[in-house]
């Protein structure tokens, strides 16, 4: 699974994308968030962290499947 990263999440990981190995067996948005918090403690300190699946905000129970575009959405600050 490949995750698109923006803003502070891009800086935390040090790259615009994050590749997660299949053996991590991440099946939902909630599991992805839990895995990230374990791997990158700085992610847990953000005001919020959302996940977008196919460029729509996704709930924690949404399943993740191959072929989807998955992105991390740290707190937005446009405008």
């Amino acid at each position, binding site marked *: 699974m490949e995750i698109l990263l*923006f803003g502070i999440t891009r800086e935390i990981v040090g790259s615009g994308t994050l590749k997660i190995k299949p053996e991590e067996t991440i099946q939902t948005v909630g599991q992805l968030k839990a895995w990230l918090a374990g791997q990158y403690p700085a992610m847990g*300190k953000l005001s919020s962290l959302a996940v977008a699946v196919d460029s*729509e905000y996704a709930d924690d129970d949404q399943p993740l499947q191959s072929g989807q575009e998955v992105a991390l959405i*740290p*707190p*937005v600050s*446009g*405008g």
Partner: protein
Amino acid sequence: MLIKLVEEVDVTEAYHSLQSPGAGGIDIFIGTVRNHAQGKEVTKLVFEAYAPMALKEMQKIARAAQQQWPIEKLVMLHAVGEKLVGEPVVIIGVASAHRDAAFTACRFLIDELKKTVPIWKKEYYQDNSVWVNAHP
């Protein structure tokens, strides 16, 4: 309806896209780079967007406004990249038959944009920089 992410937002382009013979009132909001924030001097801002999703979210907000108010024309332009003090970074415009809808819808659009559209702003000061809103 003109919704775009661009390197330079252009007030004249926005105004021209809001022309409509049925419009009596046009309200245009322009967000610009302010020279200070959180009591510190700001030297520049850098905007980053998740472009396809940002455009989708802007379109959703625009449709929500069109459902609530009688809107003749609507424009939402947001800049990406580096912006210096005084430069415009976002332009929201609404043309309606009457001014009340123009003002109210314009305010709604910029307030919602700031809440949901995946665009991120990094504020640069003399000695450091921060991603705005990232931390509590």
